[in-house]
């Protein structure tokens, strides 16, 4: 699909190129968040850091889980666990589109030979109380990224506005590498000592998790966990800002947000287990959104969220 001399050889090659590219452009290369999330946006580096006035620039890979998308590793493009590459820059720089196109070149897409288009696609996350305007980016008719200018997160207007880029890594890599089934995609270099395909790494886990997500996960326990995460989130946020032990002002925005992430993932699992009716669905989404909003409220009361402590 691409110019031979510059073609990446493997899935990880594409990831490494993106890491290098965005590092060069000045982003902090963060690591994945150590919790189960549905998309890279859930990483606090995006959700929370897009709030408040402090500038921010980060890029990272985020393993993402969508329990309902599991197909036992058999579908050529659908996975319950996949990777997103996420770039978040605040304030959004004026040349963000050009920067983005540069990243496509970095992974071997020759702009002279391909048809790149920006097609309207507005982004909304009902669970995060967030929305933005932007596009899905098409390369030869295929959606390769989501490009969004955040307008609101956790119910707060974003000011300044963050620019967010999300690459669906498997799909993008399959395209660049010319692979038809995700499991056939080379994970490391095909000429490595021990060449591994995506299937070598993930076929078994796709099977295991598909069975777990659809049939085995104990819904009673999950329902209880959901309630607990919700309660814990609220409890953490209800604490006084002044820490009795250190006397410092410590608001528990991140620990509380962890509970919100947990509740969100548990909801996704319950959804995959088919125990949530259509009407209940809205109610659960509303409960997660309420947590996300309260976490956002708390975060903007912290230093990273732009809060300036009054001089003592």
């Amino acid at each position, binding site marked *: *699909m691409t110019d031979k001399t510059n073609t990446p050889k493997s899935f990880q090659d594409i990831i490494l190129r993106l890491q290098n590219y965005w590092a060069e452009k000045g982003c902090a290369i963060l690591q994945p968040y150590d919790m189960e999330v549905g998309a890279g946006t859930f990483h606090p580096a995006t959700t929370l850091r897009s709030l408040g006035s402090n500038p921010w620039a980060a890029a990272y890979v985020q393993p993402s889980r969508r329990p309902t998308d599991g197909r036992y590793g058999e579908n*050529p*493009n659908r996975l319950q666990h996949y990777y997103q590459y996420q770039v978040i820059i605040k*304030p*959004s*720089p*004026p040349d963000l*589109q050009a920067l983005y196109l540069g990243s496509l070149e970095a992974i071997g897409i*020759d*702009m*002279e*030979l*391909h*048809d*790149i*288009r*920006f*097609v*309207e696609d*507005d982004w909304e996350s009902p669970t995060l109380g967030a929305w*933005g*305007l*932007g*596009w899905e980016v098409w*390369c*030869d*008719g*295929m959606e390769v990224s989501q490009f969004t*200018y955040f*307008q609101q997160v956790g119910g707060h207007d*974003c*000011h*300044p*506005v963050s*620019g967010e880029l999300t690459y669906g890594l498997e799909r993008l890599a399959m*395209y660049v590498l010319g692979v038809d089934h995700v499991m056939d995609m080379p994970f490391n270099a095909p000429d490595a000592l021990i060449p591994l395909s995506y299937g070598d790494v993930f076929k078994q886990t796709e099977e295991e998790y598909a069975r777990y997500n659809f049939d085995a996960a104990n819904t009673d326990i999950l329902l209880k966990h959901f309630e607990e995460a919700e309660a814990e989130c609220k409890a953490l946020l209800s604490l006084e800002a002044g820490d009795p032990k250190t006397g410092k002002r410590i608001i528990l925005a991140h620990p509380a947000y962890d509970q919100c992430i947990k509740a969100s993932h548990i909801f996704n699992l319950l959804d995959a287990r088919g125990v949530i009716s*259509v*009407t209940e669905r809205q109610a659960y989404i509303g409960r997660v959104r309420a947590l996300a909003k309260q976490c956002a409220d708390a975060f903007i009361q912290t230093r990273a969220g732009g809060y300036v402590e009054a001089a003592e």
Partner: protein
Amino acid sequence: MADLLIELFSEEIPARMQKNALADLTRMMSEGMANAGLTYGDKSGFVTPRRLVLMMSDVPAMSMPKTEERKGPRVDAPEKALEGFLRGAGLTKDQLKTRDDPKGAFYVATMTAPGRSANDIIAEALEKTIRNFPWPKSMRWGDGDLKWVRPLHSIIAVMSDGEESEIVPFEIAGIKASNTTHGHRFLAPDEITVHNAEDYMAKLAKANVILDPIARADHIRNEATNAAFAIGLSLIEDEKLLNENAGLVEYPVVYLGEIEEQFRTLPAEVLQTSMAEHQKFLSLKNADGQITGYVIVANRSTKDNGAMIKAGNAKVLRARLSDAVFFWENDLRNVERHGVEPWLEKLSNVTFHNKLGTQGERIDRIVELSREIAPMVGASPDDAATAAKIAKADLASEMVYEFPELQGVMGTYYAKAAGHSNAIANVCTTHYAPLGPSDDVPTEPTAIAVSLADKFDILTGFWAIDEKPTGSKDPFALRRSALGIVRIILENDLRISLADMIGKGHEGANSSDLTRFIIDRLNVYLRDQNIRHDVIGALKNDSDDLALLVKRVKALDAFLKTDDGTNMQAGIKRALNILSAEEKKDGVSFELDPDPKLMKHDAEIALQNALDKAEATAIPALKSENFEEAMSAIGQARSAVDTFFTDVIVNDDNAIIRRNRLCILNRIRVLSVQICDFSELEG
């Protein structure tokens, strides 16, 4: 005189917003300039995914001076009032004039505002336009506060006169107006400096930007048609998709692709929808009408003649169509083995609306309603019930889950596969019609019955739970359903009472309110056919038999366009006015039969005779719904009415004669109300 060029250069504007944006830019700038007294000769505008362009010719350097008169205090008013007035007007006392009016003499100031520079006015209008631009959705970016549809990058604002060209001084949110822009994002990204509109157009054309959206659409259509012709195919017209494509590219380049053999078993609608929906491909058909090819509209040419672009798009299409084949084959296998019953069972667990129950319950209601409506429209109740039962089964199919817009069409395929007759199967598609105002309505009796049942069920349902459309909010497209009812009734000349139908639908729907809602749609429909709105108003709420109403409206509309009609209207209105005035005065109604013995005047007798004659024809004609004849008969009384009003004084000194004459006028009233409420008519 100078020519103005404005370009607002931004990141990609959604295709669906471009046309309106151009109209809004043109309107807001013209208004802004006109309000400030700045004229222009011609104007033209263009829009691409990245730019909004406005050009105006012959703009003077200054606006016209504006003169206005301001009324001041009376000449005998206290000195203080005058001082205040002079201060406000910036004049001295000797510059004032005095004028008399019934209340006395007062001061008048004539104030002349000097002309203002065009640059200032344009800058002001542009600022207002940008800040108040009615984008359907707009956004902020970076750390700014300005809102635009996507980040705004640069603005050209140039006034040019021959070789002379200057930038209109203007700045908004840190963006300074300039005379520079960029060409095509990939083919000619360098900065371009422009002197005037002509130069701008020439340079952008060279920089791979086709400014005119119509030219882009034409280009796509022509290129696609020619390329398809060369391989024996023809383009399936899809104006909306064509325009959308024209809104996604600045430099359209057309590439053709062929649908692989393995996908050609898919129904044409599936191929077309999948390609249009996911990839914005136009479809190509062969001589047999089979879709065998497609058109990719790319935003560039490449040195490999689009080889990569074609290969990439073909790959995406293959994945999409593989999915579609999977759904299609699964669905077919299911209906061939088990019919549509398992789907109906599934639908009985799907919520339609939390206050209106499940899809299954809704289908059951439509079945019952179809059975009842069938005899009124000449359909067999059993056929209507059978068709209604399966009409929405495809909502549970995999294909419709994936492509909701294929509902109905898939139902017909599946119903046939399940062994239903073509006539019954077709109802799956046709009962949704009409979807748009120019769509065909169902004409086959079974389809009419199910279509009406469907629409009356949804309307009475939402009326019963009091969720009616408000303003622009109509999430369940109830207006469309109502218009559908109107059109099905009229275009099939059905004689049914709305109230009757509503009575058979959901309990608790306010019948008169819903009738009014449907009649409102009728009025919109008639207005679109250029029937005078007051003519429609004069018949309002008179009957809930739509076909009858429209017959009357059309006859009346035609009648009022004749000489007899306009004169008769004047005569009738005069009679109505006199009657209501005199009745109010006397506190009685003049409704007795006039007594011929009391008629002294020839004109009185002539009118009485003319009315006898008109009635003799008009009343039976009205009964047999021959409205043209009735109106022409009434029109023939016109000269008698005219003469009566010229020669006869209604308010005779003799109270008995006066009353008798008013009673003659009452005959006109009685006759006229059978036609319409003339007091509602204008003129």
